[in-house]
């Protein structure tokens, strides 16, 4: 019964992504199966080289890179959106899996959740 948490907002402009990350890591902390999907503009959360401190925020790159260690089963990323934002696989933090079809990806999870 894996829960898929979806992030479709870019980082830093809103807190939706952070709230989604907190939900994901809470599931993992309670030993509940969790995965993440970065959708649309949300793929930019996975971009290497973010300097969050430039806008007075904390970077989540370390959390995302260590997600598997925390028990997050998969980090999926919208391949079409990556192409749209000019992101090659090497531009992304390690450990993500491309999703070629969002519809197909969603159908694999019994629960799909947005944080906001």
């Amino acid at each position, binding site marked *: 019964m894996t829960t898929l948490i979806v992030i479709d907002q870019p980082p830093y402009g809103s807190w939706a992504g952070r709230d989604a990350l907190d939900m994901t890591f809470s599931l993992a902390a309670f030993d509940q199966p969790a995965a993440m999907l970065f959708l649309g503009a949300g793929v930019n959360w996975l971009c290497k080289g973010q300097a969050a401190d430039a806008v007075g925020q904390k970077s989540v790159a370390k959390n995302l890179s260590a997600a598997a260690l925390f028990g997050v089963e998969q980090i999926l990323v919208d391949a079409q959106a990556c192409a749209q934002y000019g992101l090659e696989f090497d531009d992304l933090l390690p450990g993500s899996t491309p999703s070629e079809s*969002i*519809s197909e990806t969603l159908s694999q999870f*019994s629960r799909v959740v*947005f944080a906001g």
Partner: protein
Amino acid sequence: MPENTTATLHIINKAPEHARFRHCLASAQQGDTLLLIEDAVLALLDRGKQLPGASYGLEADANARAVANRVPADQLVDYAGFVQLTVNHSRIINW
């Protein structure tokens, strides 16, 4: 063909122009139901939107936005109907 054959209830409250609306429509499979609440009821009038066969608008939100009289009555549900849709679907995505 996806493995999961459980019918899904998609509930969306975003206006048709919102980016998430597109993803919601793209994810609706055969046999799924779409419930449009709040600003999403406007999609019932949006000629540019192809909605899945089983699409319903929440009556109160359609009334608020003065669109209820431009939508077939059997496409509107009240809050009791909203409840029943959630009872009937074990898989629900709130977009």
